[in-house]
């Protein structure tokens, strides 16, 4: 095996999502072979991103400005909130150009086997955004898998008595998948065909 700096590099790379021990080794050797300037750029990019990117205090998504570009845009319709699991889902929906409202990022889905309950998600923050009655519709766009559907059910029950319209993306999304991997046309159509659940 490796020791010293090489072992440390492989260990740190191996902690990244989707990177197993073999890939970590491959990337480590790639870095050793690479031009020192390229490596410096990678290191800078990682450090800069970590230093500059925070979370929007309104919608909770990863951003460089607070509020984020979408929450701060006067042309966006602040009366419609689209609720998603992760920041990357926002990007997927933005690509469809179907939606002109604002977002709310939960930070995951309810999953009892992983010990993730409503308190671990940004649900209280969502309720606070709805408290002043300016929001007329909430679109629940959690992933079309078991956990996403259960979270949607939980939310729609919580929102049922608030007097807002609650809708869920139309079916047609690949069942069991991640929202971020749905293609633009399908996702766009699911948005246009959303149905009220309250």
């Amino acid at each position: 095996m490796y020791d010293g700096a090489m072992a440390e590099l492989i260990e740190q790379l191996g902690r990244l999502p989707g990177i197993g021990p073999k890939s970590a080794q491959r990337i480590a050797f790639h870095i050793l072979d690479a031009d020192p300037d390229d490596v410096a750029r990678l290191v800078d990019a990682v450090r800069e991103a970590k230093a500059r990117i925070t979370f929007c205090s309104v919608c909770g998504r990863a951003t460089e400005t607070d509020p984020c570009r979408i929450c701060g845009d006067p042309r966006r319709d602040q009366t419609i909130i689209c609720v998603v699991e992760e920041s990357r889902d926002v990007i997927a929906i933005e690509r469809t150009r179907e939606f002109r409202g604002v977002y709310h990022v939960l930070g995951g889905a309810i999953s009892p086997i992983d010990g993730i309950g409503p308190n671990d998600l940004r649900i209280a923050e969502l309720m606070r955004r709805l408290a002043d009655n300016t929001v007329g519709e909430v679109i629940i766009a959690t992933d079309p898998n078991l956990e996403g559907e259960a979270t949607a059910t939980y939310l729609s029950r919580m929102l049922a008595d608030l007097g807002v319209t609650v809708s869920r993306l139309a079916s047609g999304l690949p069942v069991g998948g991640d929202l971020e991997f749905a293609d633009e046309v399908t996702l766009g159509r699911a948005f246009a065909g959303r149905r009220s659940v309250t």
Partner: protein
Amino acid sequence: MWVSRLELRDFRSYESCELDLSAGPVVLVGPNGRGKTNLVEGIIYSSALDSHRVHGDAPLVRTGADHAVIRTTVATGERSTTVEIQLNPGRANRIQVNGQAVGRTRDVVGIVRSCVFAPEHLRLVKGEPADRRRFLDSVMVQVAPRYLGVRSDFERALKQRNAALRSLVAAPTREAEAVLAAWDERYAPIAAELAWGRYNAVQQLSDVVVDAYRRISPQDDEVTISYESAVPAWHSREELASALSEALRERHRDEIRRGGTLIGPHRDDIGINLNGPPARTHASHGEAWSLALALQLASFDVLNRIGDDPPVLILDDVFAELDEVRRERLLDAVTGAEQILVTAAVAADVPAQLHARSLQVTRVDGVTHIE
């Protein structure tokens, strides 16, 4: 349908195996533990993406290897199709049909159709409900491949619901109640879907089991099989889903007390009755063997009906367990198969009238070889 070629790499006790097979009967002979069942298990896995003896893929990969490959070529009439499965325990398996990647498991189930008779199944009548559900699922999934996905969704929903129940027991808050209620809404329709699939598989078996039993035991016995569920009276999938939700509500207190889900297809069973009373408690040893054989024959008939040609018939170690009369009746009953793969530890256990080509299975340094 018949398997014309089987290749195994790092599967069970095989390091690398390439075997050309013929239609008709083929016997794999060799002492215990040589790798006979391992070989047919490769074919069985190609047909239902599940082994007939273990749940989970890890034991199927040769000890010390990272992944296994099963490559099965089947011939149906003039056409031949190759299914290749790379088993990656802990990660998604890679599946190809004729060299083209397929993403959905349901697109591969049904290409290799097989029907297994195994000692495990001979204990079907007196054994555990889980054994009967497993047998039933092997039929259901080949008849309607989408149930493979339904079953894995159900298993996940059940785990989630059980975890939600346990959190509620640990900390009985309004929020924990609401989380459980949300999971109930997910769980009930999926549970109903799976139960409906199993119910229909039982109906199909039920249509042919009486005749199958008569072929094994030519007496005037009355055999009935039925789907047994804790959910009372229902006639359609929709009725079943709402009856299931209702039953969950009724058993809520019991579930809290027991800390687990009491209603659903994971608790259901096939009821088998011989001349009235349940065979599990009343049938004699001989009757139980005949009933189990009849159930397997019935599954062969069901799988035979759904395709253009009969499934590959796999008789894993069954002759050793049967007396002379049942051996002959079994052989008479399965004449429809285009290929019969038989495994036996002792060649003399295989009836001579099968006129089978025989292959010797040996093992050197823990690795299986075939001659």
